[in-house]
């Protein structure tokens, strides 16, 4: 189970390419039966793919932290987009565990992520996530 000793642990996912077809697939999935409104733009929450996905995958696979995926809930999420991401960009993403608390049998894991485009050193996304791990039944 995650505990205080894991605060400060960092995960790094360099070289995330913004594949145009993947960004379009997410725009279509978000639009559902509606037309895609802003077709040429990368959807803001595509940060799920270039920032959260590749860093959280490392957290979830980290045997020393030992998160039980069966009891995992995404509790809160924040994103800031200081600069726009464009198809074809290559992004370096990092995440850090910023807090771990246990209350009422649930463990609250807080993370902060940052995504940078090395080509111009622009920060394209800052994010925070709250992941809640329920104790096994």
């Amino acid at each position: 189970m995650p505990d205080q000793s894991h605060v400060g642990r960092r995960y790094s996912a360099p070289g995330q390419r913004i594949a145009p077809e993947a960004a379009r697939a997410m725009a279509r999935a978000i639009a559902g039966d509606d037309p895609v409104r802003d077709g040429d733009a990368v959807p803001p929450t595509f940060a799920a793919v270039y920032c959260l996905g590749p860093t959280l995958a490392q957290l979830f696979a980290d045997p020393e932290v030992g998160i039980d995926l069966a009891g995992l809930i995404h509790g809160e999420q924040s994103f800031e987009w200081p600069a726009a991401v464009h198809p074809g960009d290559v992004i370096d993403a990092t995440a850090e565990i910023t807090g771990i608390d246990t209350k009422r049998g649930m463990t609250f894991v807080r993370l902060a992520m940052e995504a940078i485009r090395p080509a111009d050193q622009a920060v394209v996304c800052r994010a925070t996530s709250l992941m809640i791990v329920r104790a096994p039944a």
Partner: protein
Amino acid sequence: MTAPTASEVAIGDSVTPFSRTVTQEQINAYADASGDHNPIHVDPDFARSVGLPGTIAHGLLEMGILADAIAAWAGGNANLLSLSCRFSKPLLPGDTIICTGTVVSVDDAGTATLEVIASSDRGDRVLTNGRATVRLSR
């Protein structure tokens, strides 16, 4: 729809309400697009085995729709500067998500801060504590 300019927006103004019905096909498409194939989103039997009424939408799909709603009002994705929320209640396939927002401040640079929320047509508040900032033209 034309985006409002900063001078046209006042504290207390509403973001144009926006609703979208979310289908299981859409949830499956989001699972593929995001890479999040957690069975609670795509496998009804598994979802029921962990105490859910059935599959549930990804929170980040709901947040993506909320982002779409705000960007539509603000004149495009590039004008959405930040968005945060709590995933309070699940959204189920077949539910309609209803996104609303209120302007709480506008600064001299034309950045508006919004309180935003998403509810389901069953009356559940699915995304709460929502906050967004958008860039408006001047």
